[in-house]
């Protein structure tokens, strides 16, 4: 129950992808860390930044093209052919189906999940290089983003932490 020596005391989780399935593992890891009494930093970079962008964060989708593991109509069905995956609405449909399953498991939407992690004492950051590349401003981010960090500041914050790249 109490912390044992073989457990990390802090994790620094990097979220670099902007698909629904690219973002959720990092959120679940960060929230799970806090639930175990482990400190957690979340660092959003490249397309992962969409998870903390107002107006975009709850519109993340599953890729139905270039995703050979995606099967229909359920996880043990047949692989979705690339050309079908490219049809308009396929990504939205796959995303809606997965979100329905997540809702059943009480996994919150991205914006609510970030709020939960923030309230749990997790820290949320955006990557400076990406912010500059994408021409973003501080007001573009959801309020849980504490700061835009350089890679150097990220490493300073991560001293003694386990760094997890997703």
């Amino acid at each position, binding site marked *: 129950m109490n912390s044992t020596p073989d457990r990390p005391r802090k994790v620094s989780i990097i979220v670099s992808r902007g698909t629904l399935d690219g973002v959720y593992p990092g959120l679940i890891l960060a929230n*799970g860390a806090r639930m175990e009494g482990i400190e957690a930093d979340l660092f959003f970079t490249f397309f992962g930044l969409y998870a903390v962008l107002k107006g975009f964060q709850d519109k993340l989708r599953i890729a139905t093209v270039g995703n050979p593991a995606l099967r229909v109509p359920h996880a043990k069905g047949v692989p979705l052919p690339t050309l079908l995956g490219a049809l308009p609405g396929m990504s939205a449909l796959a995303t809606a189906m997965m979100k329905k399953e997540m809702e059943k498991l009480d996994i*919150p939407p991205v914006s609510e999940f970030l709020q939960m992690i923030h309230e749990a004492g997790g820290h949320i950051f955006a990557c400076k290089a990406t912010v500059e590349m994408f021409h973003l401003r501080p007001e573009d981010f959801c309020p849980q983003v504490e700061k835009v960090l350089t890679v150097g500041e990220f490493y300073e914050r991560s001293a003694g932490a386990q760094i997890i790249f997703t």
Partner: protein
Amino acid sequence: MPETTIAGHTVTVDEEGYLTNPSQWNPDIARALARDLGLELTDAHWKVLEFMRRDFQERGTVPGMRRLNKVGGFATKDLYTLFPDGPIKKAARIAGLPKPTSCV
């Protein structure tokens, strides 16, 4: 299942010390389990524990954070203040419920 004595009551527990039979639980046991975790139970704690026990009785699983937020009406922040470093695990343990099995 190992048996142990908590606050003068004999209860069965799992290998991690969670009560295996919620009906063996009582407030004295809760206070003793809380003290083991360094917590003194206040009214605010009891509200959470009572909700969790009631919800477990109805649904058969320990409620997750979102259910505590939405159905129980407890804010995440407050739960971390009441039960620092692991609100659901600690509250479940004190409430005489099994170790939570959900990832969220």
